[in-house]
């Protein structure tokens, strides 16, 4: 399977701190890859480095064979990468409709995708004229994912979608992400190993700023010692 994203040995510094010290991630086309690791391991920084929000100082990132290094975040997004950040980053003063409209890259993107998006998240259609700040945490998370679906993105970077959500909402969100992966490749950051193991085909464990282990999720599920060592769960 060819790779849609190849992150090769990136090093990222934030405020003089060496946060990523050699991260390698490969996302095969049309699959879900999950970044696992303890709090502060560097998972979020890896996604932000890919988006150019905290650009890496060393290493290379290839998206569909094209280098991303040196490009601005908006140019990276325009290449077809959707980003759903940690804590959602919904525009609270904008209505749900405006939150979706702002993600349009071509006129009519939202109209074209509306049926698909509202089929995945029917609640959003009902809340369309409400300000984003009035939505519950689960609704905001759905809006954040829906926003990334408005343009024709070929890769979605989704950071901790289950954080702070009720189990029933997590279940709905994860089945939605699984449906998305039928048409889009996904690189997911997820703390909840149980959720991640059901969803992803590949995994990369980030530990203290570098990618420690990677492979097929089915192999990781069987390797309890590895899970215990890096993730602290069995």
């Amino acid at each position, binding site marked *: 399977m060819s790779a849609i994203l190849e992150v090769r040995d990136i090093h990222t510094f934030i405020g003089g701190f060496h946060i990523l010290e050699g991260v390698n991630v490969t996302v095969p086309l049309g699959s879900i890859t999950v970044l696992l690791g303890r709090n502060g391991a560097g998972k979020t920084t890896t996604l932000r480095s890919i988006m150019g929000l905290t650009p890496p100082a060393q290493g290379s990132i290839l998206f569909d064979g094209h280098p991303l290094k040196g490009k601005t975040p908006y140019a990276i997004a325009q290449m077809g990468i959707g980003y759903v950040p940690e804590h959602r980053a919904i525009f609270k*003063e904008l209505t749900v409709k405006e939150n979706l409209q702002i993600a349009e890259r071509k006129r009519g993107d939202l109209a074209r995708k509306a049926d698909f998006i509202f089929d995945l998240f029917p609640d959003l259609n009902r809340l369309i004229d409400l300000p984003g700040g009035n939505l519950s945490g689960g609704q905001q998370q759905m809006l954040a994912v829906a926003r990334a679906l408005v343009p024709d993105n070929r890769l979605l970077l989704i950071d901790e979608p289950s954080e702070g959500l009720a189990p029933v909402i997590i279940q709905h969100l994860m089945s939605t992400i699984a449906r998305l992966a039928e048409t889009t490749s996904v690189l997911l950051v997820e703390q909840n190993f149980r959720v991640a193991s059901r969803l992803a085909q590949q995994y990369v464990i980030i530990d203290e700023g570098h990618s420690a282990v990677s492979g097929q999720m089915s192999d990781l599920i069987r390797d309890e010692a590895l899970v215990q060592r890096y993730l602290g769960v069995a």
Partner: protein
Amino acid sequence: MSTTRRSSVLAILAILVFLIGVAFINSNSLGNFGITLLSGLFQGMLLFLVASGLSIVFGLMDVLNLAQGSYFMIGAYVAYDAQHSGGLLDLTSVLPDPNLRFVVAVALAVLVGSALGYALERGLLRPLYARPIFQLVLTFGISLVALELVKFIWTTTPYSWTELFGVRESFFELFGQRFSTYRLFVVGIGLVLIVTIALLLRRSRIGIVIRAGVEDREMVQALGINVRAVFTLVFTLGCAVAALGGAIAAPFLGASTTLGNVFLLQAIAVVVLGGMGSYEGTAVGSVLVGLAIAVAQDTAIGTAFAALPSITPMLLLVLVLLVRPSGLFGGSR
């Protein structure tokens, strides 16, 4: 309506009732009362033209443009120069009709304001976005350079507008008093701009991008939008609107080197009083400060408090901040 919003509306109504009440008590006739209100709205609209750019630029870019008053001053000088004979841009022979010449003079002022705003943002401000203190020093420095350039080109002598045109020389009568049609014309332009900018912010794509950028610039970029280009556009428009303010103020206030600083200080009071970065706060704040200055001018006549009109914006600001520390429509910035 949320509690915060309700308390803002109550505060605005209380200030309005107080100002209108004092204006009514001060005036000995309905005509004088009307003149005070019209004068307040006139000053409020001019303030809005300076403060709107200051507020939107601050909200979106976190830049407090201390050169904003200079664009107002330059707008006044360019419009004056284009309208009158003997200046740098003597248009009297090309455009003998003073009405048409005024329209061209205002357009030229807006054009010069836009060009200078664009040059400042692209050439000097852009490399300093990560350094807020440097931005303050830079824009303050630019205001000093602009002042010296104006003195060099037009000297320090203030100019009174002498070349009258249709709307500037006409009056209308109400309650036995003569009212300047030009003041009403400026109030009309101000109101049209308030509504136009509000519609732009609420209904257009660029408006959505600006409002989103005020909340979270990084996320706007991550959605594929070139925020830097939006910064340039907003900054340029802010300077153009300030220059427009100077140009339409000049037929009444003339052109002088003190215009920039006077309007900048009052506009800063408006922006803080309205709530940093809030457009509706700036619109409401402009009207309140304009009315307060007019009432203070009226009150100060014949008393020893000649400085009352100049300190009134700051007094009002202090009062509002004591009750609402983030301004009338301010968030948590």
